């Protein structure tokens, strides 16, 4: 009987339960995705050149636990708000409090375990899909990366079970303490802003101080080391929360008191809705701001690492691939290289251990070299027949690719002299490509074949830029992979958090919108109010989240040469996704609260 009652409640409010359950599933899926990395020591060690990576993931775990806890606490409150009327009804019908406690326990834990189970499945699927897409995109080795990772499964279940068992006890205790009558009429609570002015002021000051400390210490990572990340974590999380609590309550109050603004159109209503929300929203908005910062930060840094790979490789030479006397199959394969910016063929003649080049040919087709001029500084030099000898030593390692093992030096001679040399002519075909990464597999195959053919056994002998590229790729590719993967996971969680919060209140809001329609408010005006209200809830955390990222990028000063370069792309992509997501939320919300049939 009890089971029937508990499950019957779920059927009756299917849409609300669907919102609740899908939100929790995403939360546990993201938790699982994060844990596949955080609990996989071998993966972290082999994919990050930074020794502190496990510690950083430890902090990340703490942050994610805080975020997920806020989410679960909120979800639990929502679950209780849906159920307490029913529980009160059962009590009125004579159910004993022990039975009710049992019922609550059963239901809460079932929801938690169900969410964890489905979440692990969804998380595994997302890990598999995202993993294979990003690994293919980055050619990252990502050794030890596991899609189904048992410690992560255990961690997810343990965390969700623990949280929901605690929640179940709290629910039961709270419910049994509240008088039945209050439970029956719990939906209409008074909503005066209770906070005192000086408390708000104190919070505002604290917020600014805490955020300043957090922002400052992220720039001093070099001086303070890993503990700086911990300090930044605490100060920024608290600062974000206080800022939303103090500043927004104050700002909305100010707008409401500004009669000239508030008295126009539906402004009072929109502001009323917002302040109605803001108080119970501050925690969620703080969480959303953190998730926004984490997702955007992870994607920005991931893209930064991805871009750093060709950027650093560029300093190693101009030619992305040099084919020595390519045979038919090599020629055929090389013809399929994409984005060829420049292709030059030089004729060479080898006499003894010297490689001879034709001066006239070099004049006509200059050879591009990159010359090192101090840390992080290089200049490009086009070499002709005349100045070849001058730059030969400086460009030694780059010219290595134009000769084969056993050959020692280059010599440039006039066209006439070149023609007279004994021995046959061989060609060296040099390619400059727009994107090495896009041709990664082809170049890899071509060079493997060439190395085998000429018995090239070391990177020094090869002299190919690709060798360096692959080396940097193996160092940064793993980090880029982590960035994209976690960025995606946090983005999913961000989306689900905001949508969950907004849609979970929609049933209560529907009555208000119906009322407004009845007293003759145009639908267009109502839709505008919805767009403004949800827009504010999306915009506040996005703004603060972006500021967090801009300061947080300082942490990567040591790792990336230009952490602040090319921010437009990740920010742009992210904001477009966020805007699409905003549109979707508005559409869903409007379909719930704006009714066609007013008589119902």
């Amino acid at each position, binding site marked *: 009987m009890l089971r029937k009652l508990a499950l019957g409640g779920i059927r009756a409010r299917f849409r609300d339960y669907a919102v609740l359950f899908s939100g929790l599933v995403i939360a546990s899926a993201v938790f699982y995705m994060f844990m596949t990395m955080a609990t996989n020591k071998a993966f972290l060690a082999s994919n990050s050149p930074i020794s502190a990576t496990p510690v950083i993931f430890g902090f990340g775990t703490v942050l994610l636990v805080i975020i997920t806890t806020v989410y679960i606490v909120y979800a639990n409150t929502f679950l209780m708000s849906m159920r307490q009327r029913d529980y009160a009804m059962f009590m009125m019908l004579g159910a004993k409090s022990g039975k009710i406690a049992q019922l609550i326990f059963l239901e809460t834990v079932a929801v938690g375990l169900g969410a964890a189970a489905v979440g692990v499945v969804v998380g595994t699927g997302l890990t598999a899909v995202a993993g294979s897409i990003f690994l293919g995109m980055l050619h990252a080795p990502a050794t030890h990366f596991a899609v189904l990772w048992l410690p992560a499964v255990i961690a997810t279940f343990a965390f969700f079970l623990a949280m929901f068992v605690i929640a179940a006890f709290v629910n039961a205790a709270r419910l049994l303490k509240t008088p039945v009558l209050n439970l029956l009429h719990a939906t209409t609570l*008074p909503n005066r802003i209770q906070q005192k002015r000086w408390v708000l002021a104190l919070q505002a000051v604290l917020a600014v101080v805490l955020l300043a400390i957090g922002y400052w210490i992220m720039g001093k990572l070099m001086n303070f080391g890993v503990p700086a990340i911990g300090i930044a974590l605490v100060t920024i999380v608290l600062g974000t929360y206080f800022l939303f609590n103090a500043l927004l309550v104050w700002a909305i109050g100010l707008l409401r008191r500004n009669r000239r603004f508030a*008295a126009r159109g539906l402004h*009072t209503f929109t502001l009323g809705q917002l302040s109605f929300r803001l108080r119970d929203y501050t925690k969620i908005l703080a969480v959303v701001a953190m998730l926004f910062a984490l997702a955007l930060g992870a994607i920005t840094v991931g893209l930064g690492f991805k871009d750093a790979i060709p950027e650093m490789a560029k300093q190693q030479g101009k030619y992305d691939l040099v084919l020595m006397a390519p045979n038919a199959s090599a020629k055929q394969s090389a013809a399929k290289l994409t984005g060829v910016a420049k292709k030059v063929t030089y004729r060479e003649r080898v006499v003894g251990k010297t490689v001879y080049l034709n001066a006239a040919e070099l004049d006509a087709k200059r050879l591009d070299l990159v010359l090192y001029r101090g840390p992080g500084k290089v200049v490009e030099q086009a070499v002709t027949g005349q100045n070849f000898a001058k730059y030969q030593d400086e460009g030694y390692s780059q010219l290595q690719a134009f000769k084969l093992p056993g050959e020692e030096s280059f010599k440039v001679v006039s066209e006439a002299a070149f023609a007279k040399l004994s021995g046959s002519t061989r060609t060296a075909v040099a390619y400059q490509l727009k994107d090495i990464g896009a041709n990664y597999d082809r170049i890899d195959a071509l060079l493997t074949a060439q190395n085998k053919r000429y018995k090239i056994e070391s990177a020094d002998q090869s002299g190919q830029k690709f060798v360096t590229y692959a080396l940097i790729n193996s160092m940064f590719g793993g980090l880029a992979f982590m960035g994209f993967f976690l960025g995606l996971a946090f983005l999913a969680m961000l989306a689900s958090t905001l949508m969950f919060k907004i849609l979970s209140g929609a049933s209560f809001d529907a009555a208000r919108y119906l009322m407004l329609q*009845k*007293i*003759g408010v145009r639908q267009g*005006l109502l839709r505008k109010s919805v767009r403004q209200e949800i827009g504010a809830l999306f915009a506040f955390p996005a703004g603060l989240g972006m500021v967090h990222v801009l300061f947080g990028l300082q942490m990567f000063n040591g790792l990336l040469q230009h952490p602040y370069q090319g921010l437009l792309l990740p920010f742009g992509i992210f904001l477009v996704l966020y805007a699409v997501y905003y549109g979707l939320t508005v559409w869903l919300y409007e379909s719930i609260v704006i009714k066609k049939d*007013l008589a119902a």
Partner: protein
Amino acid sequence: MQTQPVVAVDNVTKTYGKANEKQYQALKGVTFDVQPGEFVGIMGASGSGKTTLLNILSTLDRPTSGHVAINGQDVTKLRGNRLSDFRAKQVGFIFQDFNLLENLTARENIALPMALQNAGAKAQQAAVDKVAATLGIAGVLDHYPTELSGGQKQRVAAARALMQEPAILFGDEPTGALDSQSARDLLDTMQHLNQEQGVSILLVTHDPFSASYASRILFIKDGQVGTELRHAGKSQEAFYQEILNTLGTFQK
């Protein structure tokens, strides 16, 4: 010359259910007028069709056939924004469950219809203060609905309904959720508005006492208007007794 009726209902029917499904006719041809300054009561048992009728009169629902004109305008032909605007300007509502916005103070709730017309803040305040004084709620304007008693809430709702000086004020069991003293106060106020300020009122109720405040009562049964009673100079006690007697025979 007879004045134009403020509400003219002409042979209105309402059928629920699609053509090929099981149909139910809630209204079977209702015809009546409300003259300017009248206080009309509509009585009927549960399921008699009075809520359907009120929904159609107040433009929340459309009749299957027939016409409803408010202030000379056929409301069954209005759509979209024009319908919303008509509702905002010509029709005032008081609902049984108040329908106040609990996220706004009483003052903001009352000012809302004017704010929607983008009236100036000062004009709004002045209008709110004036109507609040009439209804005796000047002291509670800065409270939220949850902080008000049922009677106060209903007065706030009435104030909001009167802000636009509507052609007609519709009441849907406005005393249904009030204690007897608050109900009496609200009805006295409505009678005052009707007699002193000439506000036309149409009150739907099944409570004989509320109905006894009306100047004319229409009894509705099984989707049709049956008996009609007129106050016509009788004392309220006598009229109340007459209603009770009519109900006694009418329900059979």
